[in-house]
């Protein structure tokens, strides 16, 4: 029953990839995956926010369970994630303006990225301890980045192709995601 850190990371990265197997974070996945130059920073920014959110959620959950206030979990999670994103934004702005300029425009988008809330909710539901939670959010973020980067590079190439007019746009992205997801099915059971 007890999953090792490595198993959690590998599982969240490949076998249960957030985007391709669990449908989390699809909006940015479809929206930002047009260009490789933006996809990678977006992935990194999301991973970072996921780690922060996971940390906050873990602490918050301890607090809520000790007061038996589980029914406030969702509302407090969403509030804390929104604040965490704000906080990250402010900290970056102050201490690393370069990084802020690179990631800044993506940060507000991340607030409504269900992958971030998903990490918090899943780690609570699976009763992960602190290290497991961190591993889970890191693996999930890395998996999100991986899917985003693969998708972006493929879509960049498709821009040089004569894709039939009917298929252009979201339909093509979805089909691509489907085939990628098929490919990732090969990892099922990995880490077990």
């Amino acid at each position, binding site marked *: 029953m007890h999953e090792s850190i490595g198993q959690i990371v590998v599982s969240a990265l490949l*076998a249960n990839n957030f985007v391709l197997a669990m449908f989390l974070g699809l909006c940015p996945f479809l929206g930002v995956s047009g260009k*490789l*130059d933006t996809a990678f920073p977006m992935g990194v920014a999301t991973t970072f926010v996921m780690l922060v959110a996971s940390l906050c959620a873990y602490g918050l959950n301890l607090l809520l369970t000790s007061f038996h206030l589980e029914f406030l979990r969702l509302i407090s999670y969403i509030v804390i994630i929104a604040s965490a994103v704000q906080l990250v934004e402010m900290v970056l702005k102050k201490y690393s303006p370069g990084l802020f300029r690179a990631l800044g425009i993506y940060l507000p988008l991340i607030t409504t990225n269900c992958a971030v809330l998903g990490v918090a909710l899943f780690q609570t539901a699976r009763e992960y301890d602190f290290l497991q939670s961190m591993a889970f959010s890191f693996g999930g973020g890395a998996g999100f980045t991986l899917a985003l*980067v*693969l998708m972006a*590079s*493929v879509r*960049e*190439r*498709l821009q040089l*192709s*004569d*894709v*039939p*007019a*009917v*298929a252009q746009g979201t339909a*093509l992205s979805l*089909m*691509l995601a489907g*085939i*990628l997801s*098929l*490919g*990732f*099915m*090969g*990892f*099922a*059971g*990995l*880490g*077990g």
Partner: protein
Amino acid sequence: MTATIEIRTAPHIRGPRTVERIMRQVVLSLAPICAFFVYQYGLSAAASLLAVTLACLGTERLFARTGSQSGDISDWSATITGILLALSLPPGFPLWMGAVAGFVAVALGKALFGGIGFNVFNPALVGRAFVQAAFPVSIAAYTPSFLPGRFTEFIPSSLAWPLMMPADNAAWLHAMHLDALAGATPLAKWKFDGVLAGAGELLTSLSGHMAVGPSPLLILVCGAYLALRRYLDWRIPAAILGSAGLTAWILFGFDAVRYPNPFFMLFSGGLILGAVYMATDMATSPVTPRGMWVYGALIGLLTVVIRYYSGLPEGVMYAILIGNAATPLIERITQPTPFGVGEARKARRAGTYPLHPSYISREEAGASAPKKRIFRNKPKRTP
């Protein structure tokens, strides 16, 4: 001289190679493999080859009529897709499912992207992966090869009604006094039962009632023919087999009990077929020589990882699909270094005359070595 002359732009001569010719050669080289496949499994295999290929061609024709496609069935590429797809399916795979696979392969794997040359994933593998996910039971149902009466009788599962579940082959096999498990592939046998198949059986697929695909040796020979005539790039199979063999060998060295020997890894399952015919699909593999090595190494590694650690016995298909997805990325990273852009290289053997010592230094010549970055060819942001 009375005829009007025409203006054209250089070059005015052309090499002999055309797309149709390449594709035709590949089909030709597949013929012996198909023949052996039919010899192994009889009527069902022939029907499967026919049904899948026809489904591919029909779909190709259908989409070509919409005018959105770059090719047509006359370029032979859909034929290749069909044959490869059929070879990668179990011989007793229900024909209607085979037709579904063929349709999906061409429609989803090729027509969607605009036809030949534009597909991102190998169409045959898209079709294969689709039916693997859709009909996991049927696609795992291999039957033994060289059954008596294989030329007069279909494997029962072949003839399932469309959309209906195929008959279970177990009873049929039982009537032939064969264990229901005789149909497991060598990889499945190893993974689930810990039984290693012998080298000779694996290589030639000739002895016993092993449920193996087409003979790896035959595929290697046909592939070598193509590679020698330069209709496929030898680097990709070399990189895949090398990386898979190396990974398997290292693991075998760590724990010879848990992991099978590298020979078994290389010659069981679809690795050879995948490495020689599937991964080398031109449109979906990198064009850059360095990229081909990276691509092949990635596929080999992923294959072994999936076979050893995931829940599936076979991983070649998934490895190649992921390799296909990574191809644009690999290409981007491994663009060739243009002549004169790389750092000054030492005089090589072909260089007959070493440079005069008094020649002016590179610095004076104004040549500068480019800085290395992760994405080497990232465009410079110029204001």
